[in-house]
């Protein structure tokens, strides 16, 4: 399944993308140990990384690229739960709780990832109590995010949810040189899957926003003209 292109894996202790609170608090000897026990893989755009319901075999750490975490709804409709980018860790929750994967992960662009086997990670967890405290930190903030999301879905209108999805995309992908155009070519369908609505409705809301002068839509791209207005529509206040 995985395409191995004989890539040189980056060493954990010299990794410049240290931003995840889980592995990056480890000391040098432990990181060296991890480097020896990990593999490095390449995933093509659109390739599945792991599937909902399967048993986890290890931990994924993104070196380069972007990944979407998604779940299947009741009627087979896809819902994007969140995005992950360089330095983020995937699949830790199932590993920690020893449960099947709760969601699937798919590469959104060509992605390179380190893979740490289940036993190597769990051994580390046994030896290092600091790591389990870090895991608790990470999980607590995940819980807060999940709570926030369900609140939004239950109480916000579709219009503000779409506006929020745009802000999320801008934060995750960044902007092009003009500092307005979102640096991604996600489809309208993807946006609707984040906002939890249909593609048709998303297109309608986007064209409403366009006629109000909040966004511009050159081709597949989205250009945010007034982030302030968009924030107001998204109704973000806490």
């Amino acid at each position, binding site marked *: 399944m995985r395409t191995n292109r004989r890539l040189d894996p980056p060493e954990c202790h010299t990794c410049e993308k240290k931003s995840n609170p889980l592995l990056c608090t480890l000391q040098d000897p432990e990181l060296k140990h991890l480097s020896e026990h990990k593999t490095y893989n390449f995933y093509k755009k659109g390739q599945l990384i792991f599937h909902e319901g399967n048993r986890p075999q290890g931990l994924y750490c993104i070196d380069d690229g972007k990944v979407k975490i998604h779940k*299947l709804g009741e*009627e087979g409709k896809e819902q994007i739960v969140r995005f992950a980018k360089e330095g983020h860790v995937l699949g830790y*929750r199932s590993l*920690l709780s020893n449960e099947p994967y709760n969601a699937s992960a798919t590469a959104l662009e060509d992605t390179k990832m380190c893979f740490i086997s289940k036993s190597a990670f769990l051994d580390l967890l046994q030896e290092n109590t600091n790591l*389990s*405290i870090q895991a608790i930190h990470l999980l607590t903030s995940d819980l807060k995010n999940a*709570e926030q999301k369900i609140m939004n879905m*239950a109480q916000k209108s579709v219009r503000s949810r779409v506006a929020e999805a745009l802000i999320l995309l801008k934060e995750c992908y960044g902007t092009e040189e003009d500092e307005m155009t979102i640096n991604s070519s996600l489809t309208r369908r993807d946006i609707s899957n984040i906002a939890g609505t249909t593609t048709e409705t998303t297109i*309608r809301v986007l064209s409403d926003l366009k006629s109000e002068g909040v966004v511009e839509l050159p081709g597949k791209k989205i250009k945010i003209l007034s982030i302030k207005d968009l924030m107001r529509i998204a109704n973000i206040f806490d």
Partner: protein
Amino acid sequence: MKKLSCSNCVFDNPSLLSNIDNSCSSKYEGRTKVKFLQGELIYSQGSKTDGIYCISKGKVKIVKLKKEQHEFVLWYAEPGEVIGIDSVINNTSHYTSAIAAEDCELCYVSNEDFHLLISSSQGAAMDFIKILCSKIDFIEGRFINLVSRTIRSRLAEQILQLLIKKNEGREMPVKEIPFDADEIAGIIGTSKNYLYKVMAKFAKDGILKTRMNKLKVLDHNKLLKEATGI
């Protein structure tokens, strides 16, 4: 306030203190037990506490309050579960409020004790991680459920809500409500055209009847069934 021993406190599910050995548990026997009456606020969002609560008896509801809106219940915490974690772990103010859903007894574990516990006992830390994981799974599952509901069931729920609002404080409940297609389409997230289509299907199934800008509910039970999907 009376003292209690963790080793006597047994729950079916993994609880925070169920996995520590006896030598360790004696340290925590000095913990204090607090009682709350039904409806009493345990902590409120925006405030800070210097410890967590482990529920020993009764149910606690975790809610989020928003301006001018009803409280939104995120989950019900049962005996063995731990509440108020976010404030202690990340040293921030509480993101949610906790209200006693029935008369309950909680064990208060101070911040220091808690950190000592998870750093000294690997088993306790793992149990705690499992509690957190299952909570996140539960919330994400609910989220997907909420999102993947059809327009049909969302519309049914919206009509029921309008009906309840209309009948508030009336002695004789009415079955007819004013109906604004633009507004309803906006709330449930669809176009006016599609809304009319679904309304026509409802009318065909004998659930409701529309005339001019009024909507009359004919079969309340069927509408309830559409909304809940049961």
